[in-house]
């Protein structure tokens, strides 16, 4: 029967189990002693309530050890452990009660101290329940795991918040001279001082396994701490390099702090260093990155503050540069160097470009900004970005929208040219006085024989052109495709300045032109040279003419072909003025028989004395005013219409303005509307006004400036000349040929439709005629 074999098997098992427990003892003696030992051991291990002083362990350790020995020998330790863990589970409510108590305290007060107390309390629980070391590491780790699993499961969600707060407070703790009372457990004997103020805290956390579990939280606390510090110390502080200071701060504050959470176990300084290596470089990187982010946010203002903000740019350069060739050394060194000297780098270049472009668009490139301001900021950007990134890739990316925008502004060239000649009014010039004057630099192809050649940076776009560090003026001039425009504008500006000079001192202008010659080359400035010579020649000729026949007229004689078009609304001066002009012209003709004077009577000033019956008025006025008062010396009363007929080419408004001048001076009086009468108190005829006249062209603000529309028309005039030229020489042409041939005209960018419109307009003017689609000139 099976029962027999079962019985035999069971009895054999029983016998074996019995022998294991009873050992070699006679009878059940062994069994009894095992039973006792089990009792003692399990009693010893039983997790007690530490709040109950009576339950404290007071067993005889000798007996306990013997009991454990016996249990161990009987291979019943695992059973004992199971029982212990089961007991622990039953007693867990005791711990839970404490956790809830402290957490409630924390939640009501919001102070990290409560969390600290909780941790200490948990450590006390942990130590109280800990099996003795003799039981071996297996049991100890099983216990630790069970204990930690349990406490982690009962932490409320607010614990991590509190823990974070607690960790954050350790930054202050580490530098405290002695630990505050809350940072040491209550039951610590006063003789046993911890080696560091935060020592107990970290060790307790370590015991409970909190450091492992909340590792990312701890590092995030450190990151936040770093960010807060960087923002607090570095924001808006651009006048000194902050990065070294931050590194010092890291060395002094953060590294000592880091030793506890990251290098507790280190036995020597070297070991600690090795342990801190990885996390340390992460934090250093974070310092760089935070500073970088901050500076990038501030970049626009930093640039405005340039050059006072140079240090901030240096920081940004160091903190933002990408690892390049020279960084291999840095990486090699990094292993050797002390952690805090390690250079972690942040790749933030694209961020910088995006931020700066956005800031420029928002704050700079809008109609409210003065062109001068934009140019100044652009120059600052050039200088600043050259510090950060010498190859100029960043500059290229940032500058592109600015250049495009400037190209669209009508007065950009004017502003640049004004700063070229160091216009006194503009205050600080764009050009650095100390920068050596050098010729304009053209974009150059790569020099393939250059031994120091380096490839373009990886973030350079396909359209990036290596912009060798060139001076600011070259960069500004290169906004436009050709420098011809600048030379033209220079002439216009020079015209204004030369005509405004009254004392005959042209040294300043000469100096300017010499400087500009270096920049633009001799040939481009030939015209300016002629203009300048005209001025000096005028004085010489005038001296000669005056020597022949003294005259009250001192003209400026300009060579028409070399001067930019002056406004030509000239008029013939009446009366004595005309006589003077004519007699001067005669003298001049004697001196220079091959030349003829063409008077620009509307320019210049006349100093005259008007002798009236009862008073003499001495005044310096523009020629038109003088001419009008001269007419009044012929006839007492004039209507505006009569005057308009008298000066054929002068606009009515100008005449009215001139009349008003005399009315203001009390010379004329508006009798009735549009009718003026010479005002003589004593009704006497005014004696002929004696006029020591000096006619040097005076420049009003608007005199020579052609508006954008006028410029457009001027340009069309140029194209018309070309059309005229080709039709003269080639006879009749179809529209498509004209369009094709117009590519010889510089700057021609019209479409054929626009050309057709233009030709149609010319036809209406009677300049051309068209037959079967062939255009020809009318003659």
């Amino acid at each position, binding site marked *: 029967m099976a029962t027999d074999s079962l019985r035999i098997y069971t009895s054999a098992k029983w016998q074996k189990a019995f022998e294991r427990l009873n050992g070699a003892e006679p009878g059940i003696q062994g069994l009894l002693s095992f039973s006792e030992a089990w009792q003692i051991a399990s009693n010893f291990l039983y997790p007690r309530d530490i709040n109950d002083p009576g339950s404290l362990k007071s067993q005889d350790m000798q007996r306990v050890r013997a009991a454990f020995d016996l249990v161990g020998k009987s291979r019943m330790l695992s059973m004992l452990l199971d029982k212990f863990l089961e007991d622990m589970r039953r007693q867990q409510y005791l711990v839970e009660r404490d956790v809830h108590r402290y957490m409630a305290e924390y939640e009501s007060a919001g102070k990290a101290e409560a969390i600290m107390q909780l941790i200490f309390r948990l450590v006390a629980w942990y130590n109280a329940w800990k099996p003795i070391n003799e039981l071996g590491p297996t049991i100890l780790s099983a216990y630790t795991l069970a204990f930690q699993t349990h406490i982690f499961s009962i932490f409320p969600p607010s614990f991590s918040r509190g823990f974070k707060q607690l960790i954050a407070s350790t930054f202050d703790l580490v530098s405290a001279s002695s630990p505050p009372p809350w940072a040491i457990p209550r039951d610590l004997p006063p003789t046993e001082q911890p080696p560091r103020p935060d020592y107990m805290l970290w060790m307790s956390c370590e015991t409970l396994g909190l450091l492992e579990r909340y590792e990312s939280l701890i590092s995030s606390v450190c990151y936040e701490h770093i960010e807060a510090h960087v923002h607090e110390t570095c924001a808006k502080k651009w006048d000194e390099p902050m990065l070294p200071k931050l590194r010092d701060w890291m060395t002094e504050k953060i590294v000592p702090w880091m030793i506890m959470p990251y290098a507790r176990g280190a036995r020597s300084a070297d070991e600690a260093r090795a342990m801190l290596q990885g996390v340390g470089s992460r934090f250093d990187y974070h310092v760089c990155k935070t500073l970088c982010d901050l500076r990038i946010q501030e970049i626009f203002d930093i640039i405005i503050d340039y050059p006072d903000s140079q240090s901030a740019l240096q920081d940004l350069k160091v903190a933002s540069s990408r690892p390049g060739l020279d960084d291999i050394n840095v990486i090699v060194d990094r292993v050797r160097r002390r952690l805090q000297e390690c250079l972690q780098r942040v790749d933030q270049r694209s961020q910088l470009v995006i931020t700066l472009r956005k800031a420029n668009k928002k704050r700079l490139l809008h109609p409210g900004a003065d062109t001068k301001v934009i140019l100044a900021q652009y120059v600052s950007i050039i200088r600043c970005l050259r510090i950060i990134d010498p190859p100029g890739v960043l500059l290229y990316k940032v500058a592109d929208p600015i250049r495009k925008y400037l190209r669209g502004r009508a007065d950009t060239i004017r502003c640049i040219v004004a700063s070229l000649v160091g216009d006194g009014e503009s205050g600080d010039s764009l050009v650095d006085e100390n920068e050596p004057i050098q010729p304009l630099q053209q974009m150059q192809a790569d020099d393939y024989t250059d031994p120091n050649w380096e490839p373009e940076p990886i973030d350079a776009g396909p359209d990036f052109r290596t912009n060798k560090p060139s001076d600011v003026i070259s960069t500004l001039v290169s906004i436009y495709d050709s420098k011809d425009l600048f030379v033209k504008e220079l002439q216009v500006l020079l015209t204004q300045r030369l005509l405004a000079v009254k004392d005959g001192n042209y040294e300043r202008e000469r100096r300017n032109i010499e400087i500009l010659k270096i920049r633009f080359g001799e040939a481009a400035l030939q015209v300016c040279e002629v203009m300048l010579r005209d001025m000096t020649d005028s004085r010489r000729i005038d001296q000669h003419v005056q020597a022949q026949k003294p005259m009250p007229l001192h003209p400026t004689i300009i060579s028409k072909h070399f001067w930019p078009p002056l406004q030509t609304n000239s008029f013939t001066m009446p009366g004595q003025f005309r006589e003077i002009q004519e007699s001067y012209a005669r003298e001049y003709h004697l001196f220079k028989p091959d030349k003829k004077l063409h008077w620009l009577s509307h320019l210049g000033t006349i100093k005259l004395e008007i002798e009236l019956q009862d008073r003499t008025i001495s005044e310096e006025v523009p020629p038109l005013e003088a001419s009008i008062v001269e007419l009044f010396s012929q006839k007492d009363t004039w209507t505006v219409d009569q005057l308009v007929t008298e000066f054929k080419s002068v606009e009515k408004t100008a005449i009215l303005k001139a009349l008003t001048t005399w009315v203001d001076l009390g010379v004329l009086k508006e009798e009735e509307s549009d009718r003026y009468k010479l005002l003589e108190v004593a009704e006497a005829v005014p004696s002929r006004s004696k006029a020591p006249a000096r006619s040097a062209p005076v420049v009003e603000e608007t005199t020579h400036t052609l508006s954008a529309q006028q410029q457009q028309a001027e340009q069309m005039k140029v194209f018309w000349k070309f059309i005229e*030229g080709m039709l003269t*020489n080639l006879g009749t042409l179809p529209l498509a040929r004209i369009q094709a041939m117009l590519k*010889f005209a510089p700057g021609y960018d019209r479409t054929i439709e626009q050309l057709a419109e233009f030709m149609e307009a010319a036809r209406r003017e009677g300049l051309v005629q068209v037959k079967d689609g062939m255009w020809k000139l009318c003659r």
Partner: protein
Amino acid sequence: MDQIMSSLAPRGAASGNKPAGGGAGAESAGSVTKRLSNELMTLMMSSSPGISAFPRSDANLFDWVGTIEGPAGTVYAGLKFKISILFPANYPMSPPAIKFDSPCYHPNVDINGGGICLDILQDKWSAVYSVQTILLSLQSLLGEPNNASPLNPDAAAIWDSPEQFKVQLMKYYRPVVDEAEA
């Protein structure tokens, strides 16, 4: 712009033309086209009365057509002459080749080929001359011929009798007509 222009240079002109003058090799086709476009611009803007010139087509900047009106007060007054101007590849180191396309009865002009005897177009050439100066010289040459070295001895012989000269001149003269109609 330079690149566009240099493609306009005649291929033959760049390589095959006579290598005249010392610095001929130094001038590249690019700088020649640049110079020619500048001259064209200057000429267009100068508005000198009675002279004009323009490239024959948009494909070749080295071949121009010019028009000269006879100066007032001379037998040529009111007459118009077409000339052709061919620039060498090393212009302005060498002078352009210029000839009259319209028949021109003149002591210094070949009545058949249109060749011109003018010192500045031969040995007196200098790089500072330009199309404009050449055209002006030709215009003044019409009124003031150099009878000492005539290409057309008959014309030189009768220069001093304007009546007779005018008759001969008008015998050869053909008014300029537009190409399309011709």
